[in-house]
């Protein structure tokens, strides 16, 4: 299949990733663990931009940036350098942002995503290090607020800004790129996507070779897809009216699902970039080999390995590796039970139940999953009973064995089933007649009646076998 990209949609993304797994901020020793703290409690003279303070570069942040670069198949620069990006905003304590300009730490990479027509390559133009500003807090709504408070806890957090080429041809491809990127970053153990503000997206969109617009500050992957859908529709409508799209910066209103004009090109800032004199250039080229050695297995490689090692189908491998926590969970389960059964239970059943409840894999533990799969494998419970246990744990908690006891989920076998089969045959002579008359379906009805009598605790397949045996023995 060839995807023609009929409207000539071109989407490029700029993604700000907060390196929130670092212990300290980019230029000072303040802790990054501020998400549940009171405002302005994780600050020091450096990240507050007090007069006289100087930045000291966090070496581990540089290593993380190189890790990311390597995972995105990028070139790593020989020597890094920081620049100042000068602009005024109350949450920017120094009046400039320390960032990288013409020598980003990594550049020219590529990420393979599942595109509209099979595998699709999205090129990475560059990724650079920079510091996060603080946050403005309005008292009540922004327009009625009597004043604005500033929380500098976030100020100085290390960010990596990843800039793609405009290689995505649809909102769906953009979404997949973002998902893939998050996936890779989590594998690298450089960031936790569950923390607020950990990944923020700006999107550039053009159609049919026209001018591009930039939609700023989209906070989720779903939001990005929605913003792009809206923006493409808006641009198409403009073209349909015979007008030209103007180059401008737009804001995505999450609540209304629309983009709004913020500023046109004429008002764009002159950032007056120049090299940061307080940070000396740093040679990092020699670090690359060492970091390469410590690079973990990445999603694509893990997916291939799951297929070859566990013999699972590609859809399972994809589902299980698209979140490192799920993949780790699966491998732990698979080390204790049959990997094939584990693949089905984790990928098809557990993930489905989690998604339905908007929960993460952290809501379930490996021991319980192992126990449930063992119970099914040993024939003690039915598959249906297993699903019930999973749901029960997610909704109310508890352990598999307690739930089994409490709900009476132990599979019934032998005499009880025998008895039920006998009773059902006695109670439904008409159905038996139909069966003898050649209506295969009435056998299903009879089996169903047995299941009903045993409250679903019998194994349907063996009930069917026993039923046929009993008919042969006593009714022929």
């Amino acid at each position: 299949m060839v995807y023609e990209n009929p409207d000539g949609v071109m989407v490029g993304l700029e993604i700000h990733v907060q390196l929130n797994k670092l212990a300290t901020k980019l230029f000072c020793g303040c802790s990054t663990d501020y998400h549940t703290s009171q405002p302005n409690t994780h600050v020091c003279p450096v990240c507050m931009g007090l007069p006289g303070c100087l930045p000291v570069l966090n070496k581990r942040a540089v290593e993380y940036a190189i890790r990311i670069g390597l995972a995105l198949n990028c070139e790593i620069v020989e020597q890094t350098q920081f620049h100042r990006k000068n602009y005024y905003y109350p949450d920017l304590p120094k009046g400039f942002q320390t960032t990288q300009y013409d020598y980003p730490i990594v550049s020219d990479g590529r990420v393979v995503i599942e595109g509209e027509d099979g595998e699709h390559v999205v090129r990475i133009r560059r990724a650079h290090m920079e510091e996060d500003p603080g946050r403005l807090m309005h008292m009540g709504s922004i327009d009625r607020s009597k004043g604005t408070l500033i929380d500098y806890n976030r100020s100085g957090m290390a960010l990596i800004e990843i800039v793609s080429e405009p290689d995505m041809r649809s909102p769906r491809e953009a979404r997949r790129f973002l998902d893939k990127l998050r996936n890779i970053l989590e594998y690298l153990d450089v960031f936790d996507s569950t923390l607020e503000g950990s990944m923020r997206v700006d999107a550039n969109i053009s159609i049919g070779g026209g001018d591009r617009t930039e939609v700023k500050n989209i906070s989720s992957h779903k939001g990005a897809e929605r913003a792009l859908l809206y923006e493409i529709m808006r641009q198409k409508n403009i073209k349909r009216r015979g007008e030209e799209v103007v180059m401008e910066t737009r804001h995505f209103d999450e609540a209304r699902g629309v983009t709004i004009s913020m500023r046109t090109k004429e008002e764009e800032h002159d950032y007056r970039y120049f090299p940061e004199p307080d940070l000396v250039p740093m040679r990092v080229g020699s670090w690359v080999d060492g970091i390469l050695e410590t690079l973990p297995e990445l999603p694509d490689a893990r997916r291939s390995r799951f297929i070859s090692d566990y013999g699972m189908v590609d859809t399972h491998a994809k589902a299980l590796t698209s979140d490192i926590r799920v993949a780790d969970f699966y491998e732990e389960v698979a080390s204790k039970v049959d990997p094939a059964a584990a693949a089905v239970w984790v990928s098809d059943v557990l993930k489905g139940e989690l998604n339905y409840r908007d929960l993460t894999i952290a809501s379930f533990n490996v021991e319980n999953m192992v126990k449930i799969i063992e119970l099914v494998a040993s024939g003690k419970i039915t598959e249906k009973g297993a699903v019930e246990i999973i749901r029960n744990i997610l909704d109310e908690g508890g352990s598999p064995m307690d739930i089994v006891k409490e709900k009476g989920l132990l599979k019934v076998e032998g005499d009880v089933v025998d008895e039920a089969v006998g009773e059902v045959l006695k109670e439904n002579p008409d159905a038996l007649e139909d069966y003898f008359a050649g209506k295969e379906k009435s056998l299903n009805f009879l089996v169903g009646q047995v299941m009903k009598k045993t409250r679903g605790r019998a194994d349907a397949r063996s009930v069917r076998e026993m039923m046929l045996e009993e008919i042969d023995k006593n009714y022929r």
Partner: protein
Amino acid sequence: MLDGLSDIKNRIVSSSAEEVVASYLERIEKSNINAFTCIAEDAIEQAKKVDSLDIEGPLAGVPIAIKDNISTKGLSTTCSSAILEGYVPPYDAHVIERLRKAGAVIIGKSNMDEFGMGTSTETSTYGPTLNPWDTERVAGGSSGGSAAAVAAGQVPVSLGSDTGGSVRCPAAFCGAVGLKPTYGAVSRYGLVSYANSLEQIGPLANRVEDVAALMDVIGTYDNRDSTCVKHNAGYTDTLQDGVDGLKIGVPDEYFGEGIDDNVQKLVWDAIGKFEDMGAEYTKVSMPNTPYALAAYYIIAMSEASSNLARFDGTRYGNRSEGENWHMMASKTRQEKFGAEVKRRILLGTYALSAGYHDKYYLKALKVRTLVKQDFERAFEDVDVLMAPTMPTPAFKIGEKMDDPLSLYLSDVNTVPINLAGVPSISVPCGFSEGLPVGLQVIGNYFDEATILKAAHSFEKNTDHHTKLAAEVV
């Protein structure tokens, strides 16, 4: 002759730190040269602590004045600007930490040109510091307060900062000794940045040995300043070595147009004195010197425009009210910054702007490289360079205030040193019509030892430093 560190130490032993500090506080009290922006209320307390705890640091009980752009915990730090009125830093600069550890008593903050921008300490929001030799004249700048306080005997030692000559100029105008260390020799952590790629904290005193002693305390490695370099200190170790065989280079370009005849003569006399002491001199050429001044001002102003962006009234200091945040910031900057600061911010902003960046800023960086190469070449053949520190003795207060360009020209012999980052010291080498003149001795990177040794030898063989300014009370 004013007391040096060794005299003070003797006085402290025979009486107490408290008494010594009190005597200096009294001198400051009596003075009218406006050298201080504030006096530390706990100065006596600090001294008492030295006495009672028997603190034995190399500067135990010695009062010191700190330029008002160096952060002192609990003590106002305003950069002599209205915009920082009321700002009390919650932390100490690296040099202050070192001084406190050495037992020094921080006696107060000294006056300066607003944010270090000036050559006369006339742009201070607190008014100009007067020259102790002639109170109608400027003390030089921007560390005018630090130099005047030393020359007037209000403190034995002080710290200044030197971006384009700000320690050496007032040292020369006030007849003190002032050192601009190699870039990276003293941590800038806590120094409020004006032009951070150029500036260094430097000591001022009435004796070369006291400047060296201060360097031993403050010139240590600090990992909070990424431009700070690990190096072997030991500034006093070789101070007593002679200058026999010392090779002096005299750069022609530093004796050019605008250099006062008397000043030239005194500097040549000084070089003659060095010859008498066994040194030899050759003329050297520093061909890119004429472009240094322009490059310096472009770079300094560009950096200043960025460094001073943080003063927006939001977090500290003084603010003007406005109906929204940009009006508040805008009015604060409009009303609280002085004219010279605004001039430099505007020029720097212009020089960095898209479209002019290459024409001015990048070109200035290229000139900087050339100037640096001039020094590297010169130091292949000579040990030190000697030249006048300032082209003239101290000028009258107000004389150049309305003519910033002529004021900038007086930095012509000091700014190339900052562009290159080499160390340089100014020592008194005589008097022109009763006003002190400074000899500038410039050294190779991290070779403070040689220029300190040279300056010390000169001082031992001359008596300029023994003369007292009129304002010594």
